[in-house]
């Protein structure tokens, strides 16, 4: 994606909804250890698992519900969180506490910190306690170190295309898992590549425009912050295939904080990490892990500030029932 496009997406107030860049940056908040997603009337609503009390039976009702977790970084042991096992277990506990059992769990990448078999093993073992055994993964850049993702795809890529991308249908909703952490170019952002884009164009061609579509990938498919590489080079092309659909939701990880944004028919969400927080764009010299006192860590991983979302109709679409 060009710089001009990036500017366009973030700086301009397309919907005249008062969400300019400054407002947009304000709307980011630390969120919980995962997100509970409910598809209701073709519209996906997302709730932070750290606000379980607010997810009542009424909120959990819908055609389909699932959970997104992200960035478990198993193997990370530095000051920002020396115990990523415990924080992932907290996420699983919260999934188990949901009043409605999720159909499946999406893990949007950086399962491991260093692509080590033991790290993948540990995550799989912990997730065995989750209420569903149906767990779908897309890789983060930490999962494909040194072997171009061979190990990750062998372990988690059952039924995927050779590049690791795949799609499936569940209760009338079309899900597309994309891989945007391979073959990254110097100075660039995340990358989908020609082959994957061609596949995706064909994959959605046969769908009726009323089919709700959910796309998930590790690196955001919109440019959150170009300077830190928080975007995907050729995502505009991918999103162009989805313009004709009435309801499109894009779920990403990578930036270790929640953000939500609506752009036309597409709602974008990023999930928090179960491991450690990263700074808001531009608020630090680099995007490295935020070090906070141990007693504050879980609260940072578990606090959502949605006040800004209330009364902002374009953003409230996704969280309107939280208030």
């Amino acid at each position, binding site marked *: 994606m060009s710089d001009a496009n990036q500017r366009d997406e973030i700086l301009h107030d397309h919907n005249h909804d008062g969400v300019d860049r400054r407002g947009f940056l304000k709307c980011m908040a630390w969120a919980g250890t995962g997100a509970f997603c409910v598809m209701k009337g073709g519209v996906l609503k997302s709730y932070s698992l750290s606000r379980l009390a607010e997810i009542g039976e009424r909120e959990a009702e819908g055609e389909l519900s699932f959970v997104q977790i992200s960035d478990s970084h198993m193997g*990370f042991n*530095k*000051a*920002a969180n020396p115990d990523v096992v415990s924080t992932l277990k907290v996420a699983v506990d919260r999934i188990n506490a949901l009043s409605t059992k999720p159909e499946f769990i999406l893990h949007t990448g950086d399962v491991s*910190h*260093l*692509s080590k078999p033991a790290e993948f093993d540990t995550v799989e073992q912990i997730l065995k306690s989750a209420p569903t055994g149906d767990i779908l993964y897309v890789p983060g*850049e*930490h999962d494909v*170190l*040194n072997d171009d993702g061979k190990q990750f795809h062998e372990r988690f890529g059952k039924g995927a295309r050779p590049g690791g991308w795949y799609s499936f249908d569940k209760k009338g909703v079309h899900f597309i898992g994309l891989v945007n952490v391979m073959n*990254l*170019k*110097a*100075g*660039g*952002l995340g990358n989908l590549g020609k082959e994957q884009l061609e596949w995706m164009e064909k994959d959605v061609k046969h769908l009726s425009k009323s089919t709700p579509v959910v796309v998930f990938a590790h690196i955001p498919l919109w440019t959150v912050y170009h*300077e*830190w*590489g928080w975007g995907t080079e050729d995502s505009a092309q991918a999103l162009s295939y989805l313009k004709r659909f009435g309801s499109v939701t894009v779920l990403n990880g990578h930036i270790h904080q929640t953000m939500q944004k609506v752009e036309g028919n597409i709602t974008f969400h990023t999930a928090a990490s179960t491991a450690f927080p990263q700074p808001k764009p531009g608020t*630090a*010299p*680099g*995007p*490295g*892990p935020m070090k906070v006192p141990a007693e504050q860590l879980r609260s940072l991983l578990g606090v959502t500030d949605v006040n800004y979302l209330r009364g902002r109709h374009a953003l409230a679409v996704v969280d309107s029932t939280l208030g």
Partner: protein
Amino acid sequence: MKSIRWILALKVLIAGLAIAGAVAASSGIAKTPASAATEVKIDNFSFAPQTVTVPVGTTVHWTNRDDIPHTVVSQDMSFKSKALDTDEDFTYTFSKPGTYDYFCSLHPKMTAKVVVQ
């Protein structure tokens, strides 16, 4: 008496040569890259210094001081490290002059270069 003078003169000469030699030696060290100049530190998603200029034959030594793994990969693929975890390192010896642009293949916004003269 004469011989003593000669010996003294010789001593002065030797001392002078030694000093000159020492100066030459130290200026010689200054001309070739000091070991510090061939060190590149990786921290908080950046390479520092961003540009190192070294003579042919120099070995550059990268050390990852970040909490996050990074790689050192030249854009022309002439060198490529494995993923370096915290405190792991990588070296490469530059045998040909040229400008070597490199980046972290995991975080491609991290770019830097080695200029070999």
